[in-house]
């Protein structure tokens, strides 16, 4: 982050996904209870990022679904997109961040625990797909902006109070 880059930053919004190749980097901003999932191929120096909001597409009560919104469909769709871009499945690894609980409530309502549930759902689908999770920065009660650099396979995480860290 501290050296000038020749590439551009691919920005991923809420419930969206995209792919970046070195020297570009890929970023999503202001993750709260949402989870940012990065899948990357170190050899090809290509990475995909999906910003998921909900654990399971069965929670959807809409007729058509935005696949990038859910952990189960989003991670799978990102995998397919990366394979189309030339990534090799056996080389893919994952790093994830987010899943915070921004507000502390005594309310037992399930929606308040959505952050941890999103993280659990992402781990389950990664496991089902056989993609190793090599690093994570999840939980807590703080927002995160994350940026992945396919050239170095580092995920930079910025929070309001703890500054910048890398996993």
């Amino acid at each position, binding site marked *: 982050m501290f050296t000038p880059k020749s590439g551009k930053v691919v920005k991923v*919004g*809420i*419930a*969206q996904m995209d792919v970046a190749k070195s020297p570009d980097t890929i970023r999503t*901003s*202001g*993750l*709260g*209870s*949402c989870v940012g999932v990065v899948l990357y191929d170190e050899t090809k120096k290509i990475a995909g990022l999906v910003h998921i*909001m*909900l654990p399971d597409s069965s*929670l*959807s*009560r*809409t*007729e058509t679904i*935005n696949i990038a*919104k859910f952990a189960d469909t989003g991670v799978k769709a990102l995998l397919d997109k990366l394979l189309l871009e030339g990534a090799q499945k056996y080389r893919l690894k994952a790093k994830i961040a987010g899943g*915070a609980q*921004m*507000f*502390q*409530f*005594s*309310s037992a*309502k399930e*929606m308040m625990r*959505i952050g941890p549930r999103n993280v659990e759902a992402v781990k389950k689908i990664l496991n089902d797909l056989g993609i190793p999770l090599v690093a994570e920065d999840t939980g807590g*009660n*703080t*927002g*995160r*902006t994350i940026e992945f650099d396919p050239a170095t396979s580092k995920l930079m995480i910025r929070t*309001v109070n703890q500054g910048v860290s890398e996993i």
Partner: protein
Amino acid sequence: MRHPDINSLHLDILKEIGNIGAAHAATALSDLLNKKIEMRVPKAEMVTFNEMVEMMGGAEQVVVGIYLRIEGDLEGSMFFILPVEQANRFIQHLIHDGRFDFRTNASDLGMSAMQEMGNILSGSYLSAMSDFLHLNIYPTVPGLSIDMFGAIISIGLIEISQVSDYVIMIDTSILEEGLENTEMKGHFLLLPSPESFDVIFKALGVE
């Protein structure tokens, strides 16, 4: 679901709700601080999640956010969002401590004053709205967070996201008198759940 049934009359009604709620809350804030508070014309818009975040200044902007859930005849989320500098000014004034700062010098007293301010303002907003609509509305105890706007608002968006990819937001901004030309704008944001719109329109006899 793009809420195909929402037309401009509906949006006008939602603006009126924002108007009534925020006017009461602004008066309560003005009484609390003994300062003049200006209120802008409310906005009611149907936008995507990402459009909403952009309209409010971007996901990474650090804000002081009060959040509560609404339950009862209506459901949804209510947020009171202040730029950190403006929240600092209000709390410094309220607790007579010019050194208070949410980022660098946040005392317990200041934090609970902010919590209480959130309680009072959201209470005035929602009771005015409840009277206007003749509906029973039960707010939860407000929570407080100082963080990125995107992270704070996501709790409201996630709930809506189960039903829709669009959010209808009722946004009323307030300003401290004398700071009209600055970025020091506070926002009362009401995000009714998609199922609650029919309840609102029916309560006012509009189909």
